[in-house]
């Protein structure tokens, strides 16, 4: 609730503008100023989400970036042009874009995105909106299906690795089938319920 209130201060529209601006700045600004941008985005994240969440995203970021950084380091050594500054700059850029993207996700508002879409070309924005909502929708669906399989079949093979692999395949198959059906339902919902949003006049 508290988070949403703070996100209301920073509207989705502003956060989206910030993402576009930051994406340009991290590549256009001189290296000395890049650090300032990264600090500013971190401060903004602290304001929007708090310290605990900053810690979590830094942890996730480290897990995601560490293998790439190590691989890059080895590649530089092997190729004979070790440049730690270049590596640091790249990581700072990725970190800045990663953090600003999370700010945008946290401030996401379907209503604002839809009003933006009306101004900036409906098809493009409807496609983005649907992609975002579908991602959210499929995550919920995956969770629901996993819960059912965990309760009903999860106890069958606790220690047998092959059995667990088989059960994993079973629920992934269930998810894929269900997701296909749900994707059709998205079309059905767009066609039957959201016609008004795409400009069809009302009947009665």
């Amino acid at each position: 609730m508290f988070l949403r209130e703070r996100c209301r201060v920073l509207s989705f529209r502003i956060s989206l503008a910030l993402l576009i601006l930051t994406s340009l700045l991290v590549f256009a600004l001189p290296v000395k100023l890049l650090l300032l941008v990264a600090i500013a985005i971190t401060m903004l994240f602290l304001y929007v989400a708090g310290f605990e969440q900053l810690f979590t995203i830094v942890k996730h970021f480290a897990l995601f970036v560490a293998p790439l950084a190590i691989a890059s380091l080895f590649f530089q050594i092997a190729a004979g042009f070790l440049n730690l500054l270049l590596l640091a700059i790249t990581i700072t850029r990725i970190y800045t874009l990663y953090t600003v993207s999370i700010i945008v996700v946290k401030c996401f508002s379907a209503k604002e995105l839809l009003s933006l879409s009306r101004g900036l070309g409906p098809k493009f924005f409807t496609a983005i909106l649907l992609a975002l909502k579908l991602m959210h929708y499929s995550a919920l669906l995956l969770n629901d299906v996993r819960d059912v399989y965990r309760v009903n079949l999860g106890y069958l093979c606790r220690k047998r690795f092959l059995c667990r692999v088989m059960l994993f395949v079973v629920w992934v198959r269930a998810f894929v089938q269900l997701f296909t059906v749900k994707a059709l339902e998205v079309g059905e919902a767009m066609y039957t319920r959201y016609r008004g949003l795409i400009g069809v006049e009302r009947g009665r």
Partner: protein
Amino acid sequence: MISVEVSNLSVSINSSTVLKGVSFSLREGEIVLVTGPCGSGKSTLLKVLAGVIPYMYTRFSVTGFVRIFGLSPWEAAEKGFVAYVPQDINTFFIGSRVCEELELLELSPNGFAQLCDRLLEELSDGELYRLLTYVAMSSGAKLLLLDEPASHMDVETLVNVLELLSRAAREEGASVIIADHRAEELKSYVDVVVELGVERKSSGKNLIKTSVNCCEQGFAAYVKNLVLSIGDRVLFKGLSFAVAKNAVLGVFGRSGAGKSTLLKVLAGIVPYSTGIVYVEKPVFYIPQKPLYWFSTGSVSGELSLYANLFGKRHEVGEVLEQFHLQHLASRNPYTLSVGEARRLAMALAYIASPKLLLFDEPLLGLDKSSEELLTELIEGVEKGCGSVIIASHSKKLIKLVDSYLEISPGGEVKFSA
């Protein structure tokens, strides 16, 4: 003026006939009830009228004459003449919260003040159906199509919605088609009844042959001082109850009271912070959401999978017969009607023979003969020394239970034996 004209309509998919030679007509301001057993094609008929079959589901083959206000279903839908509420309401929403969704659709949030800030995925089945019905009614459509409202809503909400529909028909000339197998509950509100298919006769056989009277004493489940809130909504404050082995507990209450959440707590899906919850394992959980959670490409394949997992390979044929699924054996479970899918879920539960069966809204989509199957399944689990907990908004099931909880919104719970 004639609003809907259907003549000799036939629908088939992969050489299997879903509807054959259906004819009826409807005038403006009339309410029609389309009734019939599970799989008789009620939902398919509504989807044809909504224009989604065959225009979206292109594998269906449709013949015959269908006109809505003189237009093809597709044209009528394009002009915004048709509004449709599906049976599986766990559908896609653009908005995240109730009021956000209503604002997007430019509808007033009247009547939804209490649900305004609730996330759509947290709404109960009944609340979601009421919301979708409201959206359909406010869309300005001249033809309203509602699939299985009686299965989703509690009696009070259903009566309320039916009265609103009657008013829309009377005062605004809207035509309404309701597909539901609970004809008795709806007959007084409708002008015309269209019957599809023939109700199957009960096999008269008992499902489970074992008659064990030496069940161990003790509890299959107990809950002590359970406190559970979702957001700022208190669902249970100090809930305590117990279910003996070999017994059936009913959990009743209006839509949104927390029945499904209680089953999820027992299944270990929803965490709780205060209280003690004990459940004897193995548990089998038949959820209300999702209604479809099958992983193979055919009904017999699904049954074989479970039979293999539970070491009951030889029982597949027998179970197909017991649960009236023989004629559906080669069908993909995702093409089954909701009632048929629930029968398949019951068959899977039967194969699993759990110590505790958790069944959320067992009456959803079930016709009379499938309801008899449910009774037999519950009796069968009991005879096998298992226990059953069913959650439903319909007190029709009270005759099947040994004791029941009645949950009121706000966390008050009454326990009756």
